[in-house]
């Protein structure tokens, strides 16, 4: 087995470590040379492995590189193992390829940055973590990468830490992701409890075999597989920014643009989709979970598309677009069409990265501003950027020939054709497909709006900015062109059988072993979907042109005037952040404060601890008062104490337990406590409460036969004949 697999994540990681430790001693050139080389080398290694072993890869479970045991305890055994199969190989290639391009791009984009080495270190670290996520052979290892990319995302969003908002955005991203990670963890626990391992291939095999350990009902009648799938999906929701955890992604745009392109468009955010596809067999066992995945995806696709309509920040629009496109992917994987989801993931990586890099290029030109209301007519000033943008724009709109067209159609068609939901939920697929078509219309509209407002018409920027407009350096434009090319051509990988006249699409065939059976889409359906979506794309573009062609036009203004509340709500992103703040953050913080002040400070510290202190202290003060200094008081206490002592001493002690045994009408009383008597005492037993002692003598036990049942008062007098002192105990007895 090829042990160079471990080199793939290791190269960027080592470079990251080196740059963190020594990066500041190096010049910019050597820094970015090291960083780019590391990722580039990782790309080459993965390409080498991928293509060299390709025949085996796509027919088998793939290649494993076992580094060692990571952690083992009891029945838990987690190996640090990497696995490359067709799916992870593809992802690996994509990550390293796009990663390399974006590294190169960054050398231009951040040419004037102070903290150059830190940036590249983080970027390398990210690539390493992402590759670990992709290649990890078991869920915990995947989780290391999963959280690792979250960390890098946090670091890179907050890269310009001087602005409090950037740091907050990073924090928000991390914490929101953590919410999802909680689900991931619980999902892992569920799987481990059911299957006894966390190795992905074993899990997948178990799921494919339909093992009863996974299909047994767990809670509310749903099988283990459902709950595990659902909790894992919670992780995916966090990482891939789906409803309800998408809120971090728009804020994440605070990071440098290459970061947005790499992490928040092409790679990290798609990890959720990748994970679901990877564990597809598990999801297939739980159609309801699949339906939830697909439903959340479709809902997110629509919702984010709507919000994107009203955004005026270049990157925010792209961010919502990403959320929406991720929704598409989830519909893909959620309808059992894993290959379709992955295909869209793949094409999306190209065109969305391209779009982001264009955004970076534009903002580079606009002195960092991303406000599209201040742009316009940039096509002339930024020719290369514009061209790449056009390609990517058309791709995302789903215009035929461009890659997005094919991948989106694969998802929509798959949704219409899917049968994974079974007879009771068969309506889900077509409904979602229809929903996606609406989302596609929205996509075409808001992307075209973006294009129109940025590149067409008059430039609305101020003079100063306008004077500085320039095309970006080659380091930035080069990667752009490559990505544009990818956006144009990547569709080839998944040409539908209707066009390619083959059995199934290329990517589907590659991934067949890794992902299992895919929904069969009839050619007729393929044609129908292609036609519809092409029309929708064109309609969206046309509508957008009517509203925004060459700047904001009359219809757009009229629309705003007619629907002021709706427009405000869309602009305000439906105030989801504020709602979360009021519903979750503030109550929780308030609760914490209450706990701290009331429970900790007052209840425990003041009452529980302070109470004892006060008690003891008061006792101390009181005892001091007794010591008045007058010797005769002392003598009195001496005498009274002695008298009290004699009084106490001379009195018999009540036995600690009075055993009364009742058998029928006979009651037996026993005061001996199982010990030999020391004192010579006399006992008088009055069983019936008539004041007369029924039994008298030295015996500490006595019995009595009651004439009739009833409620009796038992009195026992214990007497010390020496002192003629006695003590009486009373009990009540019920004689049945």
């Amino acid at each position, binding site marked *: 087995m090829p042990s160079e697999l471990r080199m793939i994540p290791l190269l960027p990681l080592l470079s990251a470590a080196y740059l963190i430790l020594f990066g500041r001693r190096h010049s910019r050139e050597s820094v970015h040379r090291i960083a780019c080389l590391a990722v580039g080398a990782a790309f080459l290694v993965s390409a080498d492995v991928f293509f060299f072993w390709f025949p085996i890869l796509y027919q088998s479970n793939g290649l494993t590189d076992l580094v060692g045991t990571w952690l083992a305890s009891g029945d838990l055994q987690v190996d640090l193992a990497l696995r490359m199969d067709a799916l992870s190989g593809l992802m690996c290639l994509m990550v390293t390829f796009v990663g390399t391009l974006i590294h190169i791009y960054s050398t231009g984009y951040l040419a004037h940055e102070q903290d150059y080495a830190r940036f590249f270190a983080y970027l390398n670290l990210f690539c390493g973590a992402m590759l670990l996520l992709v290649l990890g052979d078991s869920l915990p290892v995947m989780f290391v990468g999963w959280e690792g990319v979250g960390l890098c995302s946090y670091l890179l969003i907050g890269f310009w830490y001087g602005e409090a908002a950037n740091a907050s955005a990073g924090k928000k991203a991390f914490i929101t992701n953590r919410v999802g990670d909680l689900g991931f963890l619980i999902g892992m626990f569920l799987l481990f409890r059911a299957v006894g391992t966390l190795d992905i291939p074993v899990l997948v095999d178990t799921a494919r075999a339909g093992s009863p350990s996974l299909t047994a009902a767990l809670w509310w009648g749903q099988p283990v597989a459902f709950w595990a799938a659902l909790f894992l999906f919670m992780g995916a929701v966090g990482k891939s920014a789906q409803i309800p955890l998408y809120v971090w992604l728009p804020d994440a745009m605070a990071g440098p643009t290459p970061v947005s392109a790499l992490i928040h468009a092409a790679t990290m955010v798609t990890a959720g989709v990748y994970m679901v596809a990877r564990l597809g067999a598990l999801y297939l066992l739980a159609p309801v979970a699949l339906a939830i995945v697909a439903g959340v995806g479709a809902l997110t696709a629509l919702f984010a598309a709507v919000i994107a309509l009203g955004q005026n920040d270049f990157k925010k629009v792209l961010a919502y677009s990403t959320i929406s496109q991720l929704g598409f992917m989830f519909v893909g994987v959620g309808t059992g069409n894993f290959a379709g989801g992955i295909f869209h993931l793949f094409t999306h990586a190209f065109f969305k990265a391209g779009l982001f890099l264009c955004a970076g290029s534009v903002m580079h030109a606009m002195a960092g501003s991303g406000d599209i209301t201040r742009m316009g007519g940039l096509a002339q000033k930024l020719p290369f950027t514009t061209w790449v943008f056009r390609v990517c724009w058309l791709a995302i709109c789903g215009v035929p020939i461009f890659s997005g067209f094919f991948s989106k159609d694969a998802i929509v068609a798959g949704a219409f054709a899917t049968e994974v939901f079974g007879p009771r939920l068969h309506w889900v697929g077509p409904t979602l497909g229809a929903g996606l078509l609406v989302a596609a219309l929205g996509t075409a509209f808001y992307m075209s709006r973006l294009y129109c407002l940025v590149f067409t018409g008059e430039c609305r920027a101020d003079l100063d900015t306008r004077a500085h407009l320039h095309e970006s350096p080659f380091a930035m434009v080069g990667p752009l062109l490559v990505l544009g090319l990818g956006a144009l051509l990547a569709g080839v990988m998944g040409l539908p059988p209707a066009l390619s006249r083959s059995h199934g699409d290329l990517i589907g065939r590659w991934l067949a072993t890794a992902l299992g059976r895919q929904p069969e889409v009839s050619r007729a359906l393929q044609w129908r979907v292609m036609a519809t979506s092409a029309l929708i794309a064109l309609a969206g573009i046309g509508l957008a042109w009517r509203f925004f062609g060459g700047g904001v036009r009359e219809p757009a203004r009229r629309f705003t005037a007619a629907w002021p509340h709706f427009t405000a709500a869309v602009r305000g992103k439906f105030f989801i952040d504020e709602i979360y703040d009021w519903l979750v953050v503030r109550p929780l913080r308030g609760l914490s404060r209450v706990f701290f002040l009331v429970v900790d400070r007052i209840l425990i510290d003041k009452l529980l601890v302070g109470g004892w202190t006060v008690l003891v202290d008061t006792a101390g003060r009181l005892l*001091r008062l007794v*010591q*008045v*200094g*007058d*010797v*005769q008081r002392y*003598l*009195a206490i001496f*005498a009274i104490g002695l008298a009290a002592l004699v009084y106490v001493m001379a009195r018999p002690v009540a036995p600690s337990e009075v055993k009364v045994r009742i058998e029928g009408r006979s009651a037996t009383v026993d005061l001996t406590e199982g010990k030999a008597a020391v004192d010579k005492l006399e006992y008088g037993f009055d069983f019936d409460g008539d004041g007369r002692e029924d039994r008298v003598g030295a015996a500490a036990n006595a019995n009595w036969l009651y004439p009739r049942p009833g409620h009796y008062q038992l009195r026992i007098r214990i007497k010390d004949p020496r002192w003629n002192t006695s003590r009486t105990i009373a009990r009540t007895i019920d004689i049945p």
Partner: protein
Amino acid sequence: MPTYAYILVSLALFFVGAAGVLLRRNVLIVLMSVEMQLAAGTLALLSFSRALGDQKGHVFAFFVMALAAAEAAVGLAIVVSVFRTRRTASLDEVNGLKG
């Protein structure tokens, strides 16, 4: 007289002495009351000794008398010392140490 009568007398003497110690304010009288308690003990010892026909009680009584004398001597010395510093022999006023 039977022995218990002596014992009763001695008990009475003892408690009278105790009451004197507790109630009188003059140090000298208090000291005398203490002596009275010791005397009560001596009386009890002697009566027991006589009743039992045993000599130990008598011997003990001598020691108690010696003890009473020694206590009186030391006590008076201390009273003088107190009087020198405080100019009083009343227990009411000897309460500088307290708390």
